[in-house]
């Protein structure tokens, strides 16, 4: 059936040429800290006054993550808060006091900094530094001074839904280029590839004009594929190198990094600004002003939506992430975390839930599966609790991109079944 790649590039209302606008300061922020396995401790107490950019929590270890407040105010609560999946994570809540006093990083402006100093500065800014390069996906600066031959800036995250990812290229082009130069200084790669969706002509043009100034820079306009958010697929698509199972990109000399952290690195080094805000695309028909907004990390989702013109009566669902792979959140007082590229506010009439009609074996799911799997088979095995059979069918290779369920005429909950099976196996 001729239904290959049926996703129209604009499922959601488009906002192609909007720049990014700042938000008014939030009333409070929740700084969530500590990832799985980190030992993170807070360095403030309830009642402390903090400045914007001040450290509120720190993880132990030489490369421990640093968490900074994104507003100035008073610490009102320490404890835990639910993340988008409902799990409790450590949290510091700061109430805005309106003073907007800021703290900046200690940047050694005189002379150039060696790599050690740069890493320390980036870590201090709140970015992820990791020994092996497998920290926070493409938000990590690995501590490898050698061995990185190709750096790929993944401008295709969350495409084609969220222009925010391209904002660093379009709206902050100069700073972005500084960020690229920092990467070059740290890793001395042979090539620096910026991958941009080929449909985003303005961004492609803007960054291509910089190709002349940086010898290593190469801009690749990639045709859309749902797998472009996955590092390994990006490497395979752009460079033709297929990583084996269990192999890290760094082992083949690759580093995949997101435009957001490149910009954050530039801001940290050139201006001493810590990484405390995130460019987020707000889309959906339940808000009247969709667009890219510069959101202080930790701002409650509800406040962000309100500033984007939320129509309360119309709001029926809030999804953090792309419409195909995002997470629906239960409460709008949850904070916008670092790395969130887009939030969708669905109205009532846009809602879709799977119906779980019987599979008619039409084959559309497998036709659209980027991995070449048989989702209908995996789904049916999972539905009948045959987890091992599902695993044999290639359960582990499913990246939950959501295309199979998107095209299924029987509206089967294929992704959910896969998630269920994966849970049961582990």
């Amino acid at each position: 059936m001729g239904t290959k790649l049926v996703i129209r590039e604009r499922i959601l209302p488009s906002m192609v040429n909007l720049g990014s606008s700042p938000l008014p300061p939030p009333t409070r922020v929740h700084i969530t800290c500590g990832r799985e396995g980190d030992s993170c401790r807070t360095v403030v107490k309830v009642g402390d006054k903090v400045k914007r950019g001040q450290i509120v929590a720190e993880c132990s270890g030489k490369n421990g993550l640093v968490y900074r407040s994104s507003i100035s105010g008073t610490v009102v609560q320490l404890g835990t808060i639910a993340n988008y999946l409902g799990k409790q994570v450590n949290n510091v809540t700061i109430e805005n006091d309106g003073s907007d006093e800021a703290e900046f990083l200690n940047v050694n402006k005189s002379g150039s900094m060696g790599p050690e100093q740069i890493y320390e500065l980036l870590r201090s800014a709140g970015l992820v530094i990791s020994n092996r390069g497998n920290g926070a996906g493409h938000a990590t600066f690995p501590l490898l001074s050698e061995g990185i031959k190709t750096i790929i800036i993944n401008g295709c995250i969350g495409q084609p839904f969220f222009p925010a990812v391209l904002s660093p290229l379009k709206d902050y082009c100069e700073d972005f280029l500084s960020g690229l130069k920092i990467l070059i200084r740290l890793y001395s790669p042979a090539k620096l590839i910026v991958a941009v969706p080929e449909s985003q002509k303005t961004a492609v043009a803007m960054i291509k004009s910089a190709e002349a100034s940086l010898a290593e820079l190469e801009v690749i306009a990639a045709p859309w594929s749902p797998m472009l958010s996955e590092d390994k697929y990006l490497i395979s698509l752009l460079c033709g190198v297929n990583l084996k199972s269990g192999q890290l990109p760094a082992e083949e000399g690759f580093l995949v990094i997101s435009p957001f952290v490149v910009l954050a690195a530039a801001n940290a080094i050139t201006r001493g600004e810590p990484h405390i805000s995130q460019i987020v695309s707000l889309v959906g028909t339940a808000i009247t002003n969709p667009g890219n907004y510069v959101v202080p990390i930790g701002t409650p989702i509800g406040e962000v939506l309100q500033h984007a013109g939320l129509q309360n009566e119309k709001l029926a669902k809030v999804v953090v992430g792309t419409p195909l792979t995002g997470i629906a959140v239960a409460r709008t007082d949850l904070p916008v975390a670092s790395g969130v590229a887009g939030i969708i506010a669905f109205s009532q009439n846009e809602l879709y839930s799977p119906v779980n009609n019987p599979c008619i074996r039409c084959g559309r799911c497998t036709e659209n599966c980027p991995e070449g799997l048989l989702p209908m088979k995996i789904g049916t095995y999972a539905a009948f609790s045959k987890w091992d059979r599902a695993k044999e069918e290639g359960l582990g290779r499913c990246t939950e991109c959501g295309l199979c369920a998107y095209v299924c005429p029987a509206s089967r909950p294929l992704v959910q079944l896969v998630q269920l099976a994966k849970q049961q196996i582990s």
Partner: protein
Amino acid sequence: MAATENVGKSPSGLLLLSAAPHVHCGLTVNKIVLTTLLSLLPAVLFAVYLYGFEAVRIIVVCMGVAVGTEALIQKLRNKPITVSDGTAALTGLILAFTLSPALPTWMAVIGAFVAIALGKHAFGGLGANPFNPALVGKVFLVTSFFSPMTKWISPVNSQPVSSPLEMWAAKQQVPGYQELLLGNFGGFLGEAVVLPLIFGGIALVVLGYVDWRMPAAFLGTVFTLTNFLGQDPVWHLLAGGLVFAAFYLAGDPVTTPYTKKGRWAFGIGAGIILVVIRQWGGYPEGVAYAILLMNGLTPLINKYLRPKRSGVTRHA
């Protein structure tokens, strides 16, 4: 954590929580069935034009009994009645196209009943049947009532005639292309109304409801083999309901392979079987058997002919 007031909520106060994906392409089984039925409308109208009331009778009876049987069975099993998805009606119509317009009504009733009860629901309902339900009904009728099932009438004067393939098997003068296309001969409904079926079938392929590989493989194989055997390949494509089978019987998603390679295999296999039956087999017409035999092989085809892997592995 103090429960701060939810800023922004729906009229009921609650936000919908569901797993990804949060959007859908909008295609439903209903839409597929409806489009297929619409694509058959020109063929239905043409059949009525050729055979008048007899065609109407057969079509109405088959569709009605099919829908009624499904409703009855689902009610007896205490399951929700799903006739509104249109799949039973479509099966009934396809069955009607495999029958002679001269078939007694009570036989058509039996055929439709068997098609739905045995061909579909005995296996578990929609999506669960390995064999094409309409063909299950038709073959049941052919086996039980061979003579009435092969009684063809002329559209002109309703007199008994032989079908083109019977004439061919008996080495008689056969209708030419024009007659085949315009239905001016006796045969089952699907073999008579070739021209509208060609349009309908191509429309389904263009709209993306039938994979082009299936009719291409089926028709291509028959063309090549009959040519190789020294027969007139175009004549064989137009005769015997092959066009109907290639688009509407082989285009049934439930009973045919769901991978691209699988569809090639199905089409080629059905083509080979059909030519063998026509050339050397005992029955003059073989599309039903060709399709049913390949339906039987479909699970095997699905098991072994899989899509290509992407080539990139991730953490298992």
